[in-house]
C-alpha cells in the first residue's frame, strides 16, 4: 500500500498514527517533503522509492555524519542501496521523533553505529564511530595513541561480559544512564 497522488487518505493517516510515534501534522509534513523529493511522474506510482542521494539532500540530513548509515538502516530495499519508500521515511522519522521511547531509539542507534552489520560493536566499529564524531579530516582526528586509549576506556566501561565487543544490551545499559540521549537523538522536519 502506498501513497496516492498528493493526498493521504484518512484511513491511511490514522493507520500511520497508530503504527508510528508521529502526530497527524508531522505525518502530513513528512508526506509533503517526501513528495517534493520525487520527480513529477513518480508521484502517481503506488509505492515510489527515492534513491539515497536525494534523501541525503534533505537539509536535516545533509551534514549529519551518520547520514549514509541512517539510510541503510531504515531502507527495506533488496539491493541494500539505501533508498527509502515513504513508509521507510516514516519509520525513520518515528524513531527520531519526540515521543519515541528510549528502547526504540537505542535499538536504532545501535544499528546505525554497527558499521559492519554484524550485531555487535567491535573495535573497528568504534574507531569508525569516533572518526565520524570528530570529523574525517586530518587535523580533527584523534591520534592513533589517543584512539587506542579511548577505545580501551570505552570497552572497559561498557563491555560487561568482557568479550571485546559491545552488544545491544550493554549498549542500552550505557544509554539508559545518559539523560540527554532522548533529547539529542531527534530529527524534526
Amino acid at each position, binding site marked *: 500500500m502506498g501513497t496516492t497522488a498528493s493526498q493521504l487518505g484518512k484511513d491511511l493517516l490514522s493507520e500511520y498514527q497508530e503504527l508510528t510515534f508521529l502526530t497527524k501534522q508531522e505525518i502530513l509534513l513528512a508526506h509533503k517533503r517526501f513528495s517534493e523529493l520525487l520527480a513529477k511522474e513518480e508521484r502517481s506510482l503506488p509505492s515510489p522509492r527515492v534513491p539515497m542521494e536525494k534523501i541525503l539532500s534533505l537539509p536535516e540530513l545533509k551534514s549529519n555524519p551518520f547520514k549514509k548509515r541512517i539510510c541503510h538502516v531504515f531502507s527495506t530495499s533488496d539491493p541494500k542501496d539505501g533508498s527509502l519508500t515513504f513508509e521507510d521515511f516514516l519509520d525513520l522519522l518515528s524513531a527520531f521523533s519526540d515521543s519515541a521511547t528510549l528502547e526504540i531509539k537505542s535499538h536504532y542507534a545501535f544499528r546505525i553505529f554497527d558499521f559492519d552489520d554484524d550485531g555487535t560493536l567491535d573495535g573497528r566499529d568504534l574507531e569508525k564511530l569516533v572518526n565520524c*564524531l570528530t570529523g574525517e579530516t586530518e587535523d580533527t582526528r584523534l591520534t592513533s595513541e589517543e584512539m587506542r586509549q579511548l577505545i580501551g576506556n570505552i570497552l572497559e566501561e561498557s563491555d560487561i561480559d568482557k568479550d571485546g565487543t559491545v552488544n545491544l544490551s550493554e549498549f542500552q545499559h550505557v544509554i539508559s544512564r545518559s539523560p540527554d540521549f532522548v533529547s539529542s537523538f531527534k530529527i524534526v522536519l
Partner: protein
Amino acid sequence: MELCELQRQGSAGGNSYHGAQQSIRLQSMSSASNQNGPLFNWASSPTEGSEDESRPLKVLRGQPLPMRLKRALREVQQMRVPLVTDWQSWKRSKAKSVSRFRTDANVALYSTALWRKTLLKIGGQFGGGVQSYFLFLRFLVVLNFLSFFLIAGFVLIPSIVFKTTSPSNITADSNGTNLIGSDWSTEDCTAYDPNPQGLVIFYQYFLDLLSGTGFMEYSYVFYGYYNNTVAESSGFHYNLPLAYLLTCVFYFAFCLVCIIARMGSALRVAVATGSGAVGSYSKIVFTGWDYGCHGDQATKLKQKNIHYQLQLDLEEQRLQNKAASLTLGQTVGLYSLRVFLMVISITLIGVAFFCIFRSTAFSQEKVGETGLLGLIWEYLPSIVITAGNFVVPLLCDQIALFEKYSPSTTIIIALFRSVFLRMVSLGVLLFSLWSKITCFEDKQVCLLCQYNHEDYPCWETRVGQEMYKLTLFDFLINVAMLILVEFPRRLLVDHWSCALTRWVGRQEFLVPYNVLGLVYGQAVVWTGALFCPLLPLINTLKFFILFYCKKVTLFSNCRPAVKTFRSTTSTIFFLVVLLFGWGLALVALIYSLAQMHPSMSCGPFRSLTTMWRIVPDTFYTLSQTTQDFLFYMGSQAFSIPLFIFSCVVLCYVTALASVYGRSVDLLKAELKMAGRDKQFLVKQIEKLSRTMGVLTRDQEDMYDTGAPN
C-alpha cells in the same frame, strides 16, 4: 501462506538482531514461540492482563520493525477478535479516547510553550549548555509572572478597591493595645511626608523613576502606600495587613515549590543514572552526537566540540595517572601552594565585602542630595557591587591558573567563588542597611521609636527603593554592556585585524557567569518583595527584555564555545544556586518580620510592634473551637506521631532504594556470567566443529576417489 512469507521476511531482515530482540520483548510474552519467526510473539493476545487498551498500541509502535511488518502484526491482532463483555469494550474505548486526548493536549501544550522555536534554534547552533541558560531564564520569567498574579490578587487589587470605594469600609487600626506605652509621644514617629514640595523640575521625574523617590515613593510600588485597612461589610471581612503578610509568606513557599518541582525531574534522572563520572567516555561517544544539528557549520562545530571534549578527558586521565605518581615532596608543595592561593582569593573577597559595606554607609550618609551627583551617591552601592562582581572573579581566574586543578574542578571552584561573592555581597548590603535602620552603633537615635525615625521615617520604603535600584541598575548595566562593549568588540574584530584583535577574538557566551547574574537578580527580587510588592512584575519585564537582548548578542556577537557545559547537571546546579539566593532572602524576610519594628508612619503594620504580631492578634479573634483545633495541631500530641510516621515512610523508601540497587548489581553479575557461559560454549562449538570438520574431510576424501556423478 502470507504469514509464512512475512515470517521469512522478518527473519531475513532481522537475523543478526534476533538474539538482541530478547531485551526489547515485553516480559509477559512467552519466549516459546521464538523459532525463526519474526521479532514479535504471534501467540500473544491483546487481552492478556487487565491493563488499559493502549498497551497493544504501544507495543506496535515500539517495535523496531519496518512499516510492512507492523501493519501485518496489526492485522493479525485485529483478526483475533477477543471475547469481551460490553463493559470491557466500553472501558477500552474510553481509555483509548482518554489517551488520545492526553496526547493531543500534550502536543497543544508543547507547541504553545513560550519561545519554543527560538530555544530549539539556540540549542541547535550553540549546544545544550547555552540552551539551558535560556531555559532557566524562561523559567524565571514565568515564575515572576505567576507570582505577580498572586500578589496582585490578594494585595494590590483589594488595596486599590479599598482606597477608591466609599467609607463603608472601616479603616481601623488593628488592636491598638500594641502601642509601646502611653508616656512616649508618638508624634515624631508618625511624621512622614513623601510628597514632593513646591515646584518640581521636569527632569526630576526621570531621576525619580530611576531611584524610586518622588512621585514613585508614595505609590502602589512601595510598601508605604498601603494602609492597614480592615474592611468589613455585610458578611465580607478582609484584613489587608494579614493578607499582605500571608501573601508574602505564600509567595516564598510558592517559589520554593516551583524550584523543587523543577529540580525533582532533573534530579530523578541524575540519581537513577548514578554519578556522571563513571562511563563518561562511552557516554560521550554513544550519546554525544546531537542529531538536531543543521548545516555544515554547526556540524563542524559540534565535531570540534566532541574532539575537544575527548581530548580533554583523555588528557585529564593522563594527568591523574601522573598525579598519582607524584612524590611526597611534590604533593606537599602542591597542596601548600593551593592553600596559599585559596587564602589570597578569600582575602580578595573580604576586601570586596569591606568596600561594599563602606560604600553603603557612605551612600546612606549622603542621602537627600539632588541632581546627577545625588543620583551617583544613591547608586554607589550598586556600582561597587557590580564592579566587585566583575573584578574579583577575573582575578580569581588568574589565580586558578596556578592552582593546577583538573579543568572540570577549576570551573566548579570558580563558580562557587563567584556565587559566594555575589550572594554574600547582597547580604552585606542588607546587613549595612539593617544596622543603620536599627542603630547598631548609635543607640541614642533609636530610643524613641525602636528604629531610626529621623533618617528613615518609613524605612520599609527605603529598603524597597534600594532593591528597586539594584534591579534597575543590573538591567541597565546589561543593556549598556551589550551596546557599549559587545557590539563594538565584534565590529572591531571583524573589520580590523591586528594581533590584539586576533588574540581577543569574538566573545564567547559564558553560561555560568550569565546564570549567576540571573540568580542574583532573582535573589534581589525575593528580598525586596515584602517592601516593594510590584517588584516581581518589574522583574518579569526586565527578564523578558533581557531574553531578547541576550538572544541578539548571542546570534550576532558570539562564537560558539569550544568548551561545553553538560546540560542536565548544569540545570541542577543552576537551581541549587537559586535556592541559595532563596535561602538568603528567607533569612532577610524572617528577620524583618520577627525582629524589626515596623515604621509607625506608613504601611499596613504601622500600629504593631513587629509585623508578625498581626497573626497572633487575628488568631485570638477566631472562634474557640478553631483555636483549640489549631493548638492541638501544634502540640506534641499531634506532631510526635506525625514525626514517627514520616520516619517510617523514609525508612520504607530507603529500603526500596537499596533493594533496587542490589538487584541492579545482581543483574550485572548475571550478565557477566551469561557472557562467560557464552564464551565457553562458543569455544566448545569450535572444538567440536574442528573435530567434525576433520572427520567429514576424511569422508569426502573417501568419496572423491570415486567417479563424479
